[in-house]
């Protein structure tokens, strides 16, 4: 059963979920062999720096007994570990046959996942992909051998939150400046190589001309720091019916560059980056995960 969690957020959570994860992570730590990818440094509730093994993939049963964990970074090692864990699980199933296993009563916020979307607002799902240009930075980091192809094919994901008052203006055919600002500062970036803090600030905005006219959204942006940038055209369609937004389809396409090693791209190279937006389906589980920027910018919805 695939479960994705933000270990940084959950590690200290005082909930059943937090306690369950700490049990799994502690078991992984006790087995030793802290992996490069598993290592995470943060402060515990006492303010002490803690290094813990809580990133990667872990296979466990519903009671939190660890069956296996990834020993490497890539798909092959995860599959190998999970396959071995499945074998172990099947053996245990046989041993536990006839025993009733149940979960404790759910604690109040167990099914929520941190901050919630704005009430009566909108959730727009975002996908990001490098569709051209060059990705090959293996020579700069031998530890990433084989990664260039993966990052070149990776799909970045995120969510855009829209407030109710902004939605109401969209219904009237207007594009609120606050929404334009949010899209430009927090949602026009390459995150296909990992969720980092490479958002934009106001001083990085060299151009941000985005207009909504008759349901048709057009725009040009130029965002640049001394080390990275994104210059793109936007085209999209916003439709409403009976006071509800029924369509928010937008595409941004342009050149992205990043001279820092995180991008896994050769120095002084550019990548053709496409970013798409579409309304999240009602009840979508993916849509419940907060926007990446919210972790770093409490003013995200301003």
């Amino acid at each position, binding site marked *: 059963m695939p479960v*994705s969690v*933000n270990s940084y957020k959950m590690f200290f959570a005082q909930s059943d979920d937090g306690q369950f994860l700490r049990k799994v992570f502690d078991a992984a730590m006790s087995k030793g062999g802290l992996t490069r990818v598993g290592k995470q440094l943060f402060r515990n509730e006492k303010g002490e720096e803690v290094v813990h093994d809580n990133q990667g993939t872990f296979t466990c049963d519903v009671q939190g007994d660890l*069956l296996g964990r990834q020993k490497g970074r890539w798909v092959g090692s995860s599959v190998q570990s999970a396959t071995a864990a499945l074998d172990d*699980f099947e053996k245990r199933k046989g041993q536990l046959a006839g025993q009733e296993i149940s979960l404790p009563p759910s604690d109040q916020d167990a099914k929520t996942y941190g901050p919630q979307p704005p009430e009566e607002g909108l959730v727009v799902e975002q996908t990001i992909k490098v569709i051209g240009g060059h990705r090959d930075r293996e020579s700069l980091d031998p530890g990433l051998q084989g990664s260039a192809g993966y990052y070149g094919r*990776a799909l970045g994901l995120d969510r855009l939150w829209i407030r109710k008052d902004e939605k109401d203006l969209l219904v009237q055919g207007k594009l609120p400046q606050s929404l334009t600002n949010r899209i430009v500062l927090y949602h026009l970036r390459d995150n296909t190589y990992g969720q980092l803090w490479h958002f934009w600030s106001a001083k990085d905005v060299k151009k941000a001309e985005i207009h909504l006219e008759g349901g048709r959204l057009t725009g040009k942006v130029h965002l640049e720091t001394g080390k990275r940038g994104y210059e793109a055209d936007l085209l999209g369609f916003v439709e409403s019916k009976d006071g509800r937004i029924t369509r928010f389809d937008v595409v941004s396409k342009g050149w992205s560059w990043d001279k820092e090693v995180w991008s896994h791209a050769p120095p002084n190279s550019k990548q053709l980056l496409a970013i798409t937006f579409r309304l999240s389906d009602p009840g979508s589980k993916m849509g419940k*995960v907060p926007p990446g920027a919210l972790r770093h910018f409490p003013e995200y919805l301003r």
Partner: protein
Amino acid sequence: MNTMAALVFFLQQNGLTEDEFRKLHQELAAGKKTACGIPWEFTIREGRERALKEGKPLFIYALGGDFLGNG
């Protein structure tokens, strides 16, 4: 400026054509109901409930940020 010339002028100002829009939006966004084709749960509780119901173990993908910050 006549209508056709105005249309050409407009299209030249916007570097993204409607065909490109349709192609990219369809390829990247439309119909995507899961991340990487996998029906992830995003809370341990929901994962445990499904795992218990279906008699399966949990496969936890834990990252220092939200998984859906990157694909």
